[in-house]
């Protein structure tokens, strides 16, 4: 092939360097590649259509306002009630606890890795954080339920928590999202130009001052992006909440009680044998729609912030 292509080019000699013979093989390959790229677009379309179709059906039976503002969530019992607020409360309670753990620890780790750690130290620590990021969420769920709640919260700290509680789920979820926050924030801090640091040192600033007053504000948009991304992962996390926080839709803001989140409700209800068309089936999709919209908005915000810091420094 190579030889024939070369000799063909040679035989045609100089005249039309620009307009080569149209190659149908090349065009076909390009078409196939486009088809592959379209699969990812189709996936998004599929998600939206699947969610939308059943959600519209769902709102044929349940009022939109009743769903969004109601405070009682008992879709599977008689009398059925479809107020989604307890699930939203549960979702953001667990996410809030997770963020209280992951934001300080993750940003601390990021500052250390970006500003303090020697290259050799960074090279050993980053793979450890990658392992933490790769632990399957079901393993975190197991750990929260069978170790963290009984051994740490109850025995070590003497807290009065239920066996299933939002606190353990949130803390362990914090460690799940910590590597994400640390790695995105570290990227943002490393992208801050060296000249800014040198300028500050030249004015007599200490390392602490350079890190906190120069690098941190300069990387702020990337740091915000990291946190928003972490929150969006926490909101969508199913298994930790399902295993460690129980299956009770709960309106209270007390994290020592059991709580159910949007994602955990889907995991607990969709067992594969839910009949198509039943109100149970439609409820799964309506809750999925709400979850999808929340995480989509957060991800769009995060992409915006990442783009902002890239524009400034690259």
């Amino acid at each position, binding site marked *: *092939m*190579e030889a024939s*292509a*070369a000799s*063909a080019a040679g035989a045609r000699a100089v005249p039309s360097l620009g307009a080569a013979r149209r190659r149908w093989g*090349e065009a076909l390959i*390009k078409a196939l*590649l486009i*088809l*592959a*790229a*379209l*699969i*990812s*677009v189709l996936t*998004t379309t*599929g998600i939206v259509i*699947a*969610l939308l179709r059943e959600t519209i059906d769902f709102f044929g039976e349940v009022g939109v306002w009743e769903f969004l503002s109601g405070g009682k969530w008992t879709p599977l019992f008689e009398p059925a009630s479809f107020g989604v607020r307890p699930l939203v409360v549960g979702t953001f309670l667990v996410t809030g606890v997770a963020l209280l753990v992951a934001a*300080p*620890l*993750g940003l601390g*780790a990021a500052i*250390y890795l970006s500003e303090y750690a020697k290259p050799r130290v960074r090279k050993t*620590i980053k*793979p450890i954080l990658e*392992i*933490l990021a*790769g*632990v*399957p*969420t*079901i*393993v975190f769920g*197991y*750990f929260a339920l069978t*170790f963290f709640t009984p051994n740490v919260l109850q025995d070590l700290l003497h807290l009065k928590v239920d066996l299933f509680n939002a606190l353990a789920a949130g803390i362990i979820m914090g*460690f799940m999202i910590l*590597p994400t926050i640390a790695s995105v924030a570290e990227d943002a801090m490393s992208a801050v130009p060296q000249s800014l640091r040198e300028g500050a040192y030249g*004015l007599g600033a*200490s*390392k*602490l*001052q350079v*890190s906190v007053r120069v690098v941190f504000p300069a990387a702020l948009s990337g740091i915000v992006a990291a946190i928003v*991304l972490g929150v969006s*992962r926490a909101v*969508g*996390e*199913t*298994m930790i909440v399902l*295993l460690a926080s129980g299956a009770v839709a709960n309106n209270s803001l007390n994290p020592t009680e059991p709580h159910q989140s949007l*994602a955990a409700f889907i*995991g607990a209800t*969709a067992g*594969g*044998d839910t009949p198509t068309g039943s109100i149970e089936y439609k409820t799964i*999709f309506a809750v*999925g729609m709400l*979850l999808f919209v929340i995480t989509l908005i957060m991800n769009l915000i995060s992409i915006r912030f990442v783009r902002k810091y890239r524009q400034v420094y690259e």
Partner: protein
Amino acid sequence: MSATSEAIQAAPASRRAKDTAFRVALMACLGLSILLLGVLLYDVVKDGAGHLDADFISSFTSISADKAGAQAAIWGTIWLMGICAVFIVPVGVATAIYLEEYADNDRWYNRLIEVNIQNLAAVPSVVYGILGLAFLVRGPLALGNTVLAGGLTLGLLVLPVVIIAGREAIRAVPPSIREGSMALGATQWQTIWRQVLPASIPGIATGVILALSRAIGETAPLIVVGAATVIAFNPDGLDSQFTALPIQIFDWINRASNDVNNYKPLAAAAILLLMIMLILMNSVAIWLRNRYEQKW
């Protein structure tokens, strides 16, 4: 900045103390994360190591906890990973090639594909389960609760990982290689197939392994597409019912909290097995990255 210079004159010693304290606090942040990982691994090994033996790998799950094993789950996971790999490698690599080598970034539809992939990477995994349930298990494809539907659902879930890694690997091949090939008369596809792809295979392979290591631990989407929990046979075809390691773990944890039989060590042993598989996969990925990393 005037505050800074005052501080220097005022108390250099206290400033050094503050600096040290900050450094220690930062190290504590990292230390705590590493400590948690250590305790988690220790806890799983302590609970599960005693149960992880040949019997555990070769027996099916059972109503009696002593005799239960994970054979069906192990084979189910192997089938799922196989299907997932067969799907994500061609589709992921083709998408990456299109976006890096062909797509004109000024066209709106190419930018749409890019933003779309970024967004897909952040969609919660349970929502992929819903997609699989509505379109693969039921609806137009109607595959049923089969291992094929499960594998494809996981494939769609991790496809963005392969695409993003593939694009980075392709982008790392310097333009001079392409120009050299084209100057010798190769067509665009010949250049990609014989120069660009071979040079980016290590990066792509690393991406594929990382994608599979994410897929192997996913539980929520498999629950939603209807993986079975109690099954005493291995998959024997694409249309076979299946279970998988994470599903088996989930089932055993649930039983542990409301059953007289003690299922907790079983769950821990299965977790250990899953973690061993994960660490093996990640080691291969790291080895590939270091062994074949090419500096141009």
